[in-house]
């Protein structure tokens, strides 16, 4: 018989970030966040909710209450596949998918995710590829992601990679957009400066 680990759990107000809810509600998609009636439709329709440590409904409750650490450290925000089922089914019309994106961005900004966790790493590699070439080079992005998170997995994935290559679905060379990404980078730089001036 396994031994129990007896542990008390109380959450005190001092441990919470009482502004967290307002911060997230002020981001894109969060405008109806405070209208959530905790009905659970989002969790019910989410195909990934059974794998999440906190269901989407709980994330919203916790965000409003100020459970800053638990929310940003959850696997929920990373397991969201952006399928928009929750957004479409929510009876309060909360743009839950956008809230998840906002939380992802918060987590990346504050570096709050396990080291070598593939999803933010994938996102960053994607970002870099687009900045450099104006395109997302699938093969290269995924390869870098694997190398940076679980390098030994590369051997396992080689089989698939080879098969793709043989079927002509993998480009080993980098693809660049016509005319190069210079103009694109200019635009993004402009956005960066404009954002600093504007309210978040």
């Amino acid at each position, binding site marked *: 018989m396994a031994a129990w680990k007896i542990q008390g759990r109380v959450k005190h107000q001092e441990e919470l970030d009482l502004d967290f809810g307002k911060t997230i509600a002020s981001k*894109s998609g969060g405008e109806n966040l405070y209208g959530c009636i905790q009905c659970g439709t989002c969790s019910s329709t989410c*195909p*990934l909710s059974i*794998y999440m440590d906190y269901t989407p409904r709980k994330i919203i409750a916790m965000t409003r209450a100020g459970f800053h650490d638990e929310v940003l450290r959850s696997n929920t925000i990373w*397991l969201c*596949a*952006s*399928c*928009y*089922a929750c*957004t*479409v089914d929510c009876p309060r019309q909360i*743009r839950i*998918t956008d809230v998840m*994106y*906002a939380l*992802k*961005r918060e987590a*990346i900004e504050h570096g709050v995710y396990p080291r070598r966790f*593939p*999803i*933010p790493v*994938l*996102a*960053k590699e*994607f*970002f870099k*590829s*687009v900045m450099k070439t*104006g*395109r*997302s*080079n*699938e*093969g290269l992005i995924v390869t870098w*992601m694997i190398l940076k998170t679980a390098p030994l997995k590369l051997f396992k994935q080689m089989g*698939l990679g080879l*098969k*793709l290559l043989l*079927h*002509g*679905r*993998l*480009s080993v060379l980098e*693809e660049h*957009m*016509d*005319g190069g*990404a210079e*103009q*694109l980078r*200019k*635009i*993004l730089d*402009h*956005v960066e400066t*404009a*954002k600093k001036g*504007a*309210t978040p």
Partner: protein
Amino acid sequence: MKYLYYPGCSLKGTGKAYDESMVAVFQKLGMDVEELQGWNCCGATSYMSIDETKAFALIARNLALAEQQNGGEPVHLISPCAACYLGLCKAQKYIAESEELKTIIVDSLGSVGLKYTGNVKVRHPLDIFVNDLGLDKIAKCVSHPLKGLKVASYYGCLIVRPYATFDDQYNPMTMDKLMVALGAEAVDWPLKTRCCGGTLTGTVEEAGLRLSYMLLKEAAKRGANLVATACPLCQFNLECYQSKMNHDYGDHVHLPVAFFSQVMGKAFGLDRRQIGLQRLMVPVETSPAMA
């Protein structure tokens, strides 16, 4: 009517067959289609996780280019990739709804001489084939009716959610109707719009892979001998991991998964290589009618 065509990065990579078959089908249908010049990546889901405003700017550049290429005339931009399609629609909508965002985008694009008005009509090829051209026209081009083919039409998430622009959100039928017009049988199944796992099949496979596996199982259970898809990532997830699924879950899944435009090409009697059938990993010839 002239259309502009935005393939997106996947259609030049793992989804090459989608691009090839799409272009071949455009030709066969006598459509006036031109590829968008100088297009850049739409950012998909990953970019949005880093920076939302920049993600919109990324997409808006393509919209501005489309306007420019069409000489300022109202333009219909075809986007077969579901993620690109959703990105384009979402960016247009969010920019129109926020004065603040609009100013940043218009200024940033303006700084390199691009004009953004937000008047591009973003179209999915399914919409165009079924609603613009009409099923009669499609049926007329069919020289090899796909008898014996039982297709499970898989729409995925992003072409019906969150914007139900051309089909019903809960029970879309455009692809089903298209398949019937091609002479095939459209299998009725409940998971037409359930997520395939997206990028999770490669990053958190315990969760992502299982979603794709369930889709294949149900399609097979309902009698389908082919799954038709409208998204390069859906197609990749459903097709390319079948041996892994069989290994991990101890099963014998073997179901061809093709792009709906490939199915169209086959019914139109187009050459195998023209529609990229050779790129499919689960040979589609195992399906009758596609042989």
